[in-house]
């Protein structure tokens, strides 16, 4: 699967303090393993 990492990295998620976090910040310094869970239940 071809993934446009630049576009993916520009997406924004939210932390528990409701702060916006740009995805690319997760792999700026080290490799990131990002796990997407179904839901929080």
């Amino acid at each position, binding site marked *: 699967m071809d993934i446009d990492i630049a576009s993916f990295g520009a997406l924004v998620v*939210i932390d528990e303090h409701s702060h916006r976090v740009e995805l690319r910040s997760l*792999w700026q310094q080290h*490799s990131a393993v990002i*796990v997407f*869970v179904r*839901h*929080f*239940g």
Partner: protein
Amino acid sequence: MFCRQQVAELATHHSDFGIKDGNLAIIGSGKPDQLPPLRAATGYSGTLLTDPQRETYGFLGLNRSIGGVIGLKMVTRAVQSIASGYRPGPLQGDALQLGGAITITADNRVTYFFKSTGAGEHPPVAELLASLDQA
């Protein structure tokens, strides 16, 4: 219940990702105020985020279907999960959304990609850790 079980399993391996210079992050689709209770229930202390609009899920083409969350396999996994001590909590997020995983290196290479095809089907922790060996 599958989610809590998955996060709790990742919590027990959190330090292993750090040893390999990897940054483990978990993303869900609930509300931000649902993150602290998930931490408390699972003991996970790493990066925990949410994407209520599920833009990231959509971008990666992660599956979302009713067929993925009902069926014999799901029932079997639910029984196994309950037998392991995990009870279902209140639903917090999109009930039809399935999960996945991706590993991205600091030079923007993808070394691992996983799309769940059913509830309770998680990326094996060993595969996630191995994806860091290609960094």
